[in-house]
């Protein structure tokens, strides 16, 4: 089967990333170190059947984040991403800058 049919999106990795992070990571913004585009992980393209799970930039195809689970550990390789931005939970008295 061609890679076109195997391509999924960041919605598919919500479960795995939810094992690691206590936040909904499909709404986390990630910045591509290749083309500087910023998108929520839910919009990025994903391959689940590589060794591990690979999130690629929807614009340029750069590998943003790879997650492998093995030997009792999670391994996150994210050299293709400049940053990850997650909405912090709001608490009383806190300013609510949300990046927009």
């Amino acid at each position: 089967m061609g890679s076109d049919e195997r391509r999924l999106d960041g919605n598919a990795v919500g479960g795995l990333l939810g094992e690691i992070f206590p936040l909904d990571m499909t709404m986390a913004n990630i910045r591509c170190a290749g083309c500087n585009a910023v998108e929520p992980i839910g919009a990025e393209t994903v391959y689940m059947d590589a060794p591990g799970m690979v999130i690629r930039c929807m614009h340029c195809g750069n590998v943003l984040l790879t997650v492998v689970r093995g030997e009792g550990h999670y391994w996150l390789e994210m050299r293709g991403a400049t940053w990850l931005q997650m909405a912090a939970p709001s608490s009383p008295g806190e300013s609510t800058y949300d990046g927009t």
Partner: protein
Amino acid sequence: MERTTVLGRLTWRVGQVVKTKAETARAKSLVLEFPDWPGHRAGQHVDIRLTAEDGYQAVRSYSIASPPDDRQVTVTIERLEYGEVSPYLVDEIQAGDPLEVRGPIGGYFVWETALGGPLFLVGGGSGIVPLMAMIQHRVARANDARIRLLYSARSLEDVIYRTELEGLAKRSGIEVIYTYTRSQPPGWTGYQRRIDQAMLGEVALAREEHPLIYICGPTPLAEGASNGLVALGYEPARIRIERFGPSGR
């Protein structure tokens, strides 16, 4: 921008199948109850985990069909002939059986009334499932967002929620346009091809209405529809897609 809420890390919980319903020859709905369901949003999915006697586990994702307004959680599963998980869920599991579930998952492919409308929904095959949750949520809240659905199915017999959609069209003004890609009912004068840009140009809500667009289906359909709408001038930022892979998503 919507804010995320702290969910805590996702963990597995055991629910019970309280009812099953055949939707088509290949698709079945499972109505689930949990002692501790935290609630969900329209468009979210769950992961379902099966464990074999030898300890082997398989996990697949399935969209939630029921709106947040329901107490029970309904998932609709289509059987993939060589699947590891879907044949069991469609052919074997029965009311009363336990089921291991993780979720709800996802905040991206989600619609809630605060996001407003109008909505243009595009579904292919079982891609209708999360869109159904959105439609029912809008109806349950008596929200006035206009909804138009373009639904691609192989044939009339393959349409999931056929009766429900008929009722929603009559009672709640949901506009439904079908295309039957493999065989058509006698006398059919509607679309009988895969979704393409020309079709989208004819049926999509007008650009001037700035519709929010949700597309769910197999990867080629989802990407084709999304690219077609962008080429027609729809705003990429208002298009959300969820691709189904060969393993059930």
